[in-house]
């Protein structure tokens, strides 16, 4: 009796492990392969910069610095979480779009506008009670981001302009908007270069370690909410149906245009919150060079996390760790290895993920899920075809 029970439990455990392996194997293999490619890049870099002895162990030194800088102690771990939090929100912004068949490359612009909204309200309320200043600043950031997502959503729903082109254009417009705001209306008089005032009481409280701010918690809550929305609610079913087959969605009486506008706005809201927690939790002010990589890292996070909220958290932690550890790597390799190595590794991971079919064949993997979530409708709706007639 108990034996049978035990074997049942064992069977279920094996089943769970198999599912876990199916979902995680390919990302893991891609990460390992990308680290190998990164090592080759490091070795090649030594050849480019002359005047230093060639050191075969440099990749190891670089990676161990990366590891120490991201996971070696409480402060590095908190730093990793702090870098990961905006990536979770940004990854959700891109991933939610994928689920609806939309490619939200505009997370960068929504992120910037969100930060602008948060910093504007934060400065205005910098002496108000934190209980008022923080929620209102976050709200403003979310709404600014949502507005920046709403526009391409509306353009797609009404005219069929593909979001890939419009959101990228809006990213550049967002950059100009930030540059204008920081050097114009929000500029603090007397500073040598354009910079805003501090957000004061609107700053997010620190919860763990030296600088683990409340935004980390917000990101986790957002992941839970998005997962609940997608898989537990009827609205989420509509989003997923529009993403998988917009014609069938119309047939089922759903309104794809509405869903597109709604999803883009929600994605903008998430990306806007991402910008808000960086400005309210980390920098506390804003300059023209604010947050240049988060938007594009978010695409990588969403792809690596297969648009799934749990996957996105893990992917964000990985990329957050690399971002957190990169400065130490640059210092410990005496500036030989620039922090941008992280970008190279990140892009290589994605390349391996996209070429998943090839990797599976080469390594004889079976029962392993595809590297990139099926997003047929993204390219299908490209250029010209409106969402509905």
């Amino acid at each position, binding site marked *: 009796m108990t034996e049978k029970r035990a074997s049942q439990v064992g069977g279920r455990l094996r089943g769970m492990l198999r599912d876990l392996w199916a979902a995680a194997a390919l990302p893991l293999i891609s990460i390992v392969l990308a680290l190998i490619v990164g090592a080759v890049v490091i070795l090649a870099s030594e050849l480019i910069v002359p005047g230093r002895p060639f050191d075969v162990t440099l990749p190891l030194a670089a990676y161990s610095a990366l590891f120490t800088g991201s996971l070696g102690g409480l402060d590095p771990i908190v730093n990793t979480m702090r870098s990961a939090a905006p990536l979770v929100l940004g990854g959700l912004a891109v991933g939610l779009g994928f689920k609806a068949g939309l490619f939200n490359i505009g997370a960068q612009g929504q992120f910037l506008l969100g930060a602008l909204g948060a910093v504007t309200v934060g400065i205005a309320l910098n002496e108000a009670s934190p209980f008022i200043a923080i929620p209102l600043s976050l709200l403003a950031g979310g709404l600014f981001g949502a507005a920046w997502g709403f526009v391409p959503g509306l353009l797609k729903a009404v005219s069929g302009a593909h979001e890939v082109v419009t959101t990228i254009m809006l990213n550049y417009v967002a950059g100009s908007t930030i540059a204008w705001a920081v050097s*114009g209306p929000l500029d603090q008089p007397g500073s040598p270069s354009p910079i805003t005032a501090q957000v004061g009481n609107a700053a997010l409280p620190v919860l763990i370690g030296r600088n683990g701010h409340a935004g980390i918690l917000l990101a986790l809550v957002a992941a839970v909410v998005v997962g609940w929305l997608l898989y537990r609610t009827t609205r989420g079913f509509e989003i997923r149906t529009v993403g998988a087959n917009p014609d069938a969605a119309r047939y089922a009486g759903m309104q794809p245009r509405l869903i597109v506008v709604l999803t883009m706005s929600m994605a903008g809201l998430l990306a806007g919150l991402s910008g808000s927690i960086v400005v309210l939790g980390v920098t506390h002010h804003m300059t023209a060079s604010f947050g240049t990589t988060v938007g594009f890292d978010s695409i990588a996070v969403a792809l690596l996390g297969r648009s799934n909220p749990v996957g996105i958290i893990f992917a964000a932690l990985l990329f957050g760790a690399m971002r957190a550890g990169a400065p130490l790597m640059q210092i410990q390799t005496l500036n030989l290895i620039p922090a941008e190595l992280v970008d190279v590794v990140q892009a290589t991971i994605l390349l391996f993920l996209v070429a998943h079919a090839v990797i599976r064949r080469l390594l004889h993997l079976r029962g392993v899920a595809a590297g990139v979530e099926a997003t047929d409708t993204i390219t299908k709706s490209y250029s010209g075809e409106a969402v509905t007639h």
Partner: protein
Amino acid sequence: MDPVIQFFYGIPVLGLVFQFVGYIVDQLPTIAPIILGNATPIALAALCGVMCERSGVVNIGIEGIMIATAFVGWYVGVLVSPMFGARPDWIFGFSPALLIALAAAILTGMLISLLHAWLSITVKADQIISGTIINIAAFGLTGYLNTLISQTSPNGAGNFSRFRPPAEITQIPVVGWLFQMFLRQGPIAISLIVIVIAFQVLLFRSRWGLRTRAVGEHPRAAETVGIDVIWLRYRNVVFAGAFAALAGAYLSMEATNSFQQGMTTGRGFIGLAAMIVGRWTPVGAFGAALLFASSAALGYSIGGNPPPGQLGDLLSGVPGQVFDALPYLVTIVVLAGFIGRSVAPAADGQPYERESAH
């Protein structure tokens, strides 16, 4: 001043419009070459898009190919120019180092395109995701290498110089500015005109063009008459990489003589919008590129040489960032307005499955 014109200037808004038109006519000879110069990378990116998408492959990695080739062109110039010593003063400032650098850039563009072709045709990955990854990879790698190389204080190979058309031509009344526009350019911008016309004619009059259009519209029909769909798509996508490479080389070897991180500033994507607005034809895409480029040129012109009087006062109150954002805003508006009337090739973006399942 003409009393009639003076009368119009007196009416508030209409006066401003008149002043604006007068300003543009006045500035045209100066900004016309700038317009074509600005349009060159956009148009070349658009031609890359046309060649890929006419055969059914969506390529949004053009931006990435441009940044990578801009880097390679510049850096190969850095590496080889010491080998050639003094630089002969050929036409357009051609030097062996520059030509080798250009060839390297083109080769790089074609290699990256080969990667995209492989991912989207053979691996059958989602083509937009493949293009995005090429963009991320190209920006990451060039950023990394640029930071690395800046430690060696590199010296570039210089850049292609502009042709100086004789004054007798550019001074011709009414049309002189056109010659100024098309001839007062470097070799890449001048060759653009030739490429656009040749591409247009070949696309609609040659065997290659007919087959390309058929493959982009109905690949199975093309296959049943013995056309190798896969091979044709590979060829087109790889060759299109040369156009994107020229666009990248233009930025770092003709418009400037250096490489800056992210120097493409979205022009590859604006090129895709130009392709759509130009209805997937080379000439149409070129026209749309000129339209997008003029908005940027106008911004420079107003910033550098503001119009006098009332209009000038008004424009000087506009922040410079508005003009920076202008090309992107124009692109969005035109794209949203045009898209319903512009129809993509029917098989655009769909991987081709060779054998039917039953």
